[in-house]
């Protein structure tokens, strides 16, 4: 029952594909066909650059099933350069201290381990610090 639920979202999850509102130019993520800014129809697909900064974060020690192998891990609200916030795990941190305002970029990674006999792995976006 899990599979179609994740399959439907493959574009959003792999490519950070949302929508742009033709009326007010707001970038919309997750896509929902109605602009949250002006209420007009917004069905034009828009691929986000995958760049943004950490808006807030936490390090999860007590992890749910499917995530326990990697705990503790850091999850964040990322403010995308185009405006919307997304929730994502931070990766490739090595020993870097996470801070609010830290620039990050999107990568595609495994999100969750298989937790049942159907063996469903979920892939999608994570963010890593921008190297410079």
């Amino acid at each position: 029952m899990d599979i179609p639920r994740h399959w439907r979202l493959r574009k959003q999850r792999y490519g950070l594909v949302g929508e742009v509102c033709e009326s007010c130019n707001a970038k919309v993520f997750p896509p929902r066909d109605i602009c949250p800014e002006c209420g007009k129809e917004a069905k034009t697909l828009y691929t986000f650059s995958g760049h943004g900064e950490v808006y807030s974060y936490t390090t999860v020690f007590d992890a749910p099933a499917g995530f326990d192998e990697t705990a503790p891990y850091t999850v964040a609200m990322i403010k995308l350069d185009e405006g919307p916030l997304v929730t994502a795990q931070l990766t490739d941190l090595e020993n870097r201290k996470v801070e609010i305002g830290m620039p990050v970029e999107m990568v595609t990674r495994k999100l969750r381990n298989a937790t049942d006999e159907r063996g469903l792995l979920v892939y999608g976006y994570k963010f890593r610090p921008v190297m410079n």
Partner: protein
Amino acid sequence: MAKFRPLSRGVAVVGAGMSKFGAFPGKSTRDLFVEAFLEMRDSVDKGFNPAEVDALYIGNFSSDLFEGQGHTAPIMAEWVGLAPKPAVRVEDACASSGVALRQGILAIASGVADIVLVGGIEKMTDLPTAEVTDTLATASDMLYEIPAGFTFPGFYASMATSYMHKFGATPESFMKVGIKNHENGALNDKAQFGKTIRQVMDDKIAKSEARGLPIPVWENEIAFLQDARANPIIAWPMRLFDCSPISDGAAALLLVSEDLANKFSEDPLYILGTGQASDVALHERENLTGLRAAREAARQAYLMSGVTPADIQVAEVHDCFTIAEVIAIEDLGFFPEGEGYRAAETGVTGRTGEKPINTSGGLKSKGHPVGASGAGQVIEIWKQMRGLAGDRQVAGELEFGLTHNVGGTGGTCTVHIFGRR
């Protein structure tokens, strides 16, 4: 902003009761609701006949997942002798019974009902903790938040991170909220954790002594709460003692129309204001250090009642995590933005302070059977305003009380203001 419309007809609370909150392997939801109902029945000054009740509105988040039981409202109605009266289950996550209360008020105000039973129930401890976590997660965005590895403590922890960054609070600021609420809960016989943090420390020391283990030494409560072995991090900066527990419990309230109130009691508790609002998922918010739904619900309730934040003498706020109380007391207008975190430390929100908050122990210490929490808050206001709160009674004549109940991460919020007249 929602238009302001007063209630077409006044509503009063004339009975209030609750089960003990805690972990009760021997009790089902039905047993707990009956326990709450019987206490409520005994609390009605002049008594009442269940056959006169016109409807039941009952808050419940997830009996389906917690107990494998759907369609719970008619079962609860039947168990307390209300069938064939209409029974409505209300689901808005942890705000389920705050919303059930509001639905009961609106049913009476509309004229469709004169006497309404409002309830709240949740039975969470049958499941192992990991499955409770998964069930609670369904109150957030399952498509865009949970796949990232977020948890409920994680959401509130990220609010806390943002709050500390903006206003200079520290994890210790939140610990002080927990210490205060445990002090209150220790005086409440219905509380799940009837112990102060100091008593928890003494118990651990006694246990080590009895087992011949090294005796832990903590300079004070804060040092204990900073000790990762005694108080593990759940989602930084939230630790175990920043989180409300997994609980079973039920609550019941009897509402009647204003014109009938004196038939039940010479001292009814009137609903002066009700407010409710909703908000987007946490990851779509512009601001993580306040809940827009709480501010809007509060605005409606203050406007309807004509009462101001300064008038409120006792309040029960939704402290599912310690950071949540800090945010709540700012959203309700009790403290300016960015200053709520100092309140527990300075004692303003203590029982003897100017603005006593969560005298019951709050969800933190009293327990958080999610669907029962909102109705449970009203019971503390009822007790405080009638002078029945025993050792935790707030001094003086109380005129105005308030409850603030949040669903999820603020997707739903209700605020109710109560008064005597």
